[in-house]
């Protein structure tokens, strides 16, 4: 993907560049607000990562101006201010997603890919496959090695999200936000207990554990499960 990063902190920008480049994306970095808006309007980007607080022009203003000009490129806002007001105003101005600093690189990559997929494939493909696991979004039937697996709706949602990122870890915070609509981290094992159920159902009778825990990053479904 061709990604524009508008971020005035050189160190963070370099970190993002390194992380996304590793995933095979092309990155353009701009440090100034006004220039960022100009570049965003002229360049044909697949995605824009926009810092909230920038010199010369605020991230929200860039976004609003961009949306007014009719650009529908997906925008991921980065912010160090985690208030609810901040989040609401960002989404209201037309941001597609919102990531709080500091963030884990895996989380950024996962969000970038989710956003990158959104406009090009507005309707996700019906069938999703990871190794021997097959998930049908229409009939909501999940099979592993041809064997039907009965899932609770919540477990189906989790598996669906994991299978949209086959082979890559999905961060815990993203699970909480997408599946449970929690924008806070509950102390107890809400995610863990759902996952352990899902695992038990998926792995029953198989020697390979389909879902791995990646320490500090999240949960990953194996491509060869």
């Amino acid at each position, binding site marked *: 993907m061709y990604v524009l990063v508008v971020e005035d902190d050189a160190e963070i920008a370099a970190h993002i560049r390194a992380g996304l480049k590793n995933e095979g994306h092309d990155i353009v970095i701009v440090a100034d607000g006004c220039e960022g808006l100009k570049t965003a309007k002229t360049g044909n980007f697949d995605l824009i990562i926009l810092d909230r607080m920038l010199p010369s022009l605020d991230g929200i203003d860039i976004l609003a101006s961009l949306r007014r000009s009719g650009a529908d490129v997906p925008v991921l806002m980065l912010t160090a201010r985690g208030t609810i007001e901040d989040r609401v105003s960002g989404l209201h101005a037309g941001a597609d997603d919102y990531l709080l600093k500091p963030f884990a690189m895996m989380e950024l990559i996962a969000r970038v890919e989710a956003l990158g997929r959104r406009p090009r494939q507005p309707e996700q493909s019906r069938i999703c496959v990871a190794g021997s696991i097959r998930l049908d979004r229409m009939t909501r039937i999940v099979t592993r090695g041809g064997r039907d697996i009965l899932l609770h709706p919540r477990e189906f949602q989790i598996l669906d999200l994991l299978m949209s990122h086959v082979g890559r870890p999905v961060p815990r915070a993203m699970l909480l936000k997408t599946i449970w609509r929690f924008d806070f981290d*509950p*102390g107890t094992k809400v995610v863990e*207990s759902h996952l352990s159920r899902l695992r038990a159902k998926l792995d029953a009778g198989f020697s390979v554990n389909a879902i791995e825990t990646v320490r500090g990053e999240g949960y990953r479904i194996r491509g060869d499960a």
Partner: protein
Amino acid sequence: MPERRTRTALRIAGFYVASFAVVSLLVGMATWQLTGNAFRHTLDERLRDELVALKHADDIEGRDALIADIVAFDAIPGNGRYLLNDSQGSRLAGRVSVTRLPEEIGDTMLRAVDGHMEPARVVRMTLQDGSTLAVVGETAAMDRTERTLLLIAAVGFGSVIVIGVVGGVLSGRSLHRRLSLVDGTAQAIIKGDFTRRMPISNANDEFDQLSTTLNQMLDHIGRLMNSLRHVSADIAHDLRSPLTRLRAKLESALHSQEPETQSEAIADALDRMDEMLGLFATMLRIAEVEAGGVKQWFKPIALAPLVEEILDNYLPAAQDGGYRLETGLLEDVIVIGSEDLIGQLIANLIENCLSHTPQGSRILVSLVRTLDGAIELSVKDNGPGIEKSQHAKVLQRFGRGEASRSRPGHGLGLAMVQSIATAHGADVFLDDARPGLLVRVVFPGQG
């Protein structure tokens, strides 16, 4: 700026006094003028009528009858009122004496029998033979009435000025006094005494209304300042120690020679950092909720489906821990609020039970409308409960019950519940469930 304030009060008083004075002066003058004119007009009419009647006598009954009439009228004691001169100007009848005789109608001076001169009105007519007939009316009585009127007006005018000045000064002074009370309190608050509040009298007037509003504002600012103070203290208190441990961990990893130990230490450090960031986010969120700005996104929410959704989320975790998470009565109720925040409130209450009661405990969540229309969300467990003396403390930040000091948790869960409830105008009550803890969140009823 005390001088300016005094001037304002006096200016208001002065303005009203001047306005009253001008208006009453104008009214007085107009009354005097109109009354004078009316008197003069009436007198003129009367004199003209008499003159016409006399002329009529002359025309019909002849000159002798006219003269007889004048003589008869002049018999009444006084200064005489009639005059008949022939065309040469010699007096034919009448004993009145005037200084001048204007054409038709006009003012003159009458020479009284005692030699005094008195103002008078005269109406005159030339008869057919060229002789002059005139009737004179004294205006002294009329002038006296006019003078009385003038006196009344002057007294009224003076009273208006006096009342205006006195009233103006008094109300200006009272205004000044009330304002300086408010000003003095504000000055004291600026100097740092934030416990001061605007004085409120028994009058329940506009000033008291203003003071009440200002006091509410001060209370709100006080809460915000308090919250801010807490956040800074909390950061120092609860972030410093984990940061110190984190630093020690990284330091020892730096000196370690084994790459395995190093990467293990780094992964551990990341975990700890995420935990700290979570704590940080919670503190900031409590502060934000307490600031009240979240209210702008409030909308009507159906509570029962929200409770069911959250419980559904927690069911696996509860079952894994051997807990019985159950719902009691869930009535269909609507509250105005933020779905996210109330969701977090319910989640925190369940979290609280899961982390502070032994395995196998029963957690019962219910939602009812009370008799007085309020909406009560309650979460009851049958665990060890919290001692009554600790109830207030656990609702504060980092206010953990002594018994739970050794358990994981940072003591912000119930503080978050409290601040979300307050933002929604709801109250949180902790009760003894015999055994266990009963937490009730009571939302005000709609309408």
